[in-house]
């Protein structure tokens, strides 16, 4: 395994590589299965480059543990708004999640519907392309349209365009208080309609999820204490005709609910394959009905479906609506027959392949990961 200590060593390592490289951050998110080649770890390229709380920005090197960044921000009452999921429980992995891995996989949590994905908080990136060239895009300011937005391109590129060495984020204040408005006893259809209504009220809902097992529909509110309790009351009233509505204000309990949601804790230690489906929220219940899943969770107001299904099932033919499905957890046997990422229509696949060829002409970075 190669573990360069800084960006210039990283560039040398990539430039000198003679065969494929398997890019590794913390190794906690093996989405995509085994990648051939020599392991190139970014874990040693770490540390905080800059933190400017008054400007809501932080710049960190790729190998920095996510937990270290979260701690740093929490000390100033701030946070990464996109609430990255911790994959360890779901994937049964150990190790330390790095921020580079979070960005490479564009990992976002329930707050996606309010503040956007990881790519929306990301304002700058430095990376080493497949030639070993160091490239930057964006910077450390939150409004920047200078040149093409390679920042977005790198987020979610799973190490196939370049090895990320440094990232910059817009951060947000952490809220003083949070609450969950919980509706009990809803079937999937009603739950998705309830979430749609909640998201159409002016109460700044920062999470909308439904757990069919137990029939709990959860809506999260965050902000200053008085404002949260005001909005919770209003929202509960607006949803009262759906059924039995409860307001949970205990900080720990609310945090735990959403931590479990974010980490898909319900599927931990389960058997079977785990898929992640992105659809138009109102299409979700019908899609779920087709899946024959052991268990599902709806997040993002229904727009994100986590599905636990029998090993070896290909869900893509069952999708039948616009959207996409990612095979997140699966055995080697399933992976042999089912692609990790939704195949793109031909013209887009050609563009993606063209981009990979431009950024990694030798095809050595996480070969085969994205097609």
């Amino acid at each position, binding site marked *: 395994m190669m573990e360069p200590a800084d960006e210039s060593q990283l560039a040398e390592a990539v430039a000198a590589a003679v065969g494929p490289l398997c890019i590794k951050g913390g190794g906690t998110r093996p989405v995509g299965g085994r990648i051939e080649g020599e392991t190139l770890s970014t874990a040693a390229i770490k540390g905080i480059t800059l933190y*400017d*709380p*008054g*400007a*809501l*920005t932080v710049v960190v090197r790729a190998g920095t543990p996510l937990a270290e960044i979260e701690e740093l921000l929490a000390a100033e009452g701030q946070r990464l708004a996109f609430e990255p999921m911790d994959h360890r429980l779901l994937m049964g992995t150990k190790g330390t999640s790095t921020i580079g891995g979070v960005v490479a996989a*564009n990992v976002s949590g329930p707050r996606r519907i309010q503040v*956007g994905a990881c*790519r*929306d908080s990301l304002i700058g990136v430095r990376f080493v392309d497949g030639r070993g*060239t160091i490239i*930057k*895009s964006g*910077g*450390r*300011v*939150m*409004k*920047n*349209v*200078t*040149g*093409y*937005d*390679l*920042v*977005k*391109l790198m*987020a*979610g590129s799973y190490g*196939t365009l370049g090895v990320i060495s440094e990232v910059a984020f817009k951060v*947000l*204040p*952490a809220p*003083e208080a949070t609450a969950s408005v919980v509706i009990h006893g809803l079937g999937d259809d009603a739950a998705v*309609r309830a979430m*749609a209504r909640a*998201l*159409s*009220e*002016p109460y700044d809902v920062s999470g909308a999820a439904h757990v069919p097992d137990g029939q709990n529909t959860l809506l999260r509110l965050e902000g*200053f204490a*008085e*404002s949260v309790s*005001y909005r919770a009351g209003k929202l509960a009233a607006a949803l009262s005709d759906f059924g039995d509505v409860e307001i949970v204000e205990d900080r720990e309990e609310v945090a735990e609910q959403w931590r479990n949601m974010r980490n898909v804790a319900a599927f931990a230690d389960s058997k079977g394959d785990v898929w992640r489906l*992105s659809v*138009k929220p109102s299409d979700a219940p019908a899609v779920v009905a087709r899946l024959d899943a052991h268990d599902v969770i709806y997040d*993002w107001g229904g*727009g994100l479906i986590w599905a636990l299904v029998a090993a070896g099932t290909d869900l893509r033919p069952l999708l039948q609506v616009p959207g*996409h499905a*990612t095979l997140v957890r699966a055995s080697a046997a399933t992976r042999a027959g089912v692609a990790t*990422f*939704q195949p*793109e*229509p031909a*013209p*887009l696949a050609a563009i*993606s392949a063209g*981009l990979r060829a431009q*950024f990694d002409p030798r095809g050595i970075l996480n070969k085969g990961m994205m097609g």
Partner: protein
Amino acid sequence: MQMPTPDATVLSRKDQIVRQLQSVLPPDAVISHPEETRAYECDALTAYRCVPLCVVLPSSTQEVSDVLKICHSQGIPVVPRGAGTSLAGGALPTADSVILGVARLNDVLETDYDNRIIRVQSGRTNLSVTGAVEDEDFFYAPDPSSQLACAIAGNIAMNSGGAHCLKYGVTTNNLLGVTMVLMDGTVVEIGGAHLDAPGLDLLGVICGSEGQLGVVTEATLRILRKPEGARPVLIGFDSNEVAGKCVSDIIRAGILPVAIEFMDRPCIRATEAFAHPGYPDCEALLIIEVEGSDSEIAAQLGLIREIAMRHKPVELRESGSEEESARIWLGRKSAFGAMGQISDYMCLDGTIPVSSLPLVLRRIGEISDQYGLDVANVFHAGDGNMHPLILYDANKPGDLELCEQMGADILRLCVEAGGCLTGEHGVGVEKRDLMFAQFTSEDLEAQLRLKDVFDPKWLLNPAKVFPLSATESRRRA
């Protein structure tokens, strides 16, 4: 400013090209008479003008595709155009180019409140998108000051922002999908009502690509429920430095206003004379807007007042009514018009880290003295996006050039302070030649390679964004 020498073959074949375009478009959708094409000779950066070869105004994605196929097969450059409000010369024609205007593509295709999206054709104006959903109390968040005129197509191409983007983000954060025609005529659909990409984030790259990767004909946009209410507070300070400190303290206190706008003395004086909003005559003025119910607004304004008082403001005026809110915003909204009254001006758009604000304002003052041209500052202070307005006299020989040199110095200063050349207006032709101040040649090469993939022949808006020297070999190939 230098533009590439027009392709003589294309110029000489104008009549044939026009006939071919007429064969795929209705008769009134091809404009070729110089008197009529002159209307398209510039965008809002009026210092640069060039009459195009001809103008086409297609009414469907299919027509856009037909036009692009013709231009692609014959190597004719194409400049996409929305409403022509670009301040960077993004829609500036070249003499050998076909202007492809999307003004006739202005329908709403779908509104879906359950999923909180709207699908529109790209020529639709920004404000009319909100107009289409307002009756249901929804709105489209990005709100450039030009929103009455500018088109969604231009907003996507420039990744435009607005006064309220501190809370709601800019165009890229509110764009869910596009229908786009590649230069060879291929129609692609990217994204839609669902979130995030199945593979590489192509949508993220297209947004902000200044019309160089494809022609966007339709867009799926996120719409949001309107807040219960919104109210601004106006705070005057006798130093820029203290005003900057106040902004940073508010942010650090965990308050996230929807807008924090900043005006300096020259700008305050000009707007006061122009629109009489009743602003205090002070060094720096902040307008901070918060949203929510009445009680939420009162609570947030209370916190802001508490913080501001620590900085000894010369004036603090909380709006108590719609009327007072309008009055507070009046001056800010007429700032550009006010400056236009007293002088010709050039509007810069660099972004800086908020923490460097006092330093950068001081340096801008020094640069202004050095060049002998006045500067007024009005900008989005929450995110550091500055809009220094350099005042000059367009009729005075040499003044424009002086103004441009001074602008370049200020933008270089923004980059040195840790910021960038442009926060929301785009590079266009205006900042094209400054790109090396911010990027290494390797950084730029990566961007050029990206364009190679989408537009291998370099026919779409080819003379923009990058220094001509950096793109010459590709444009010639």
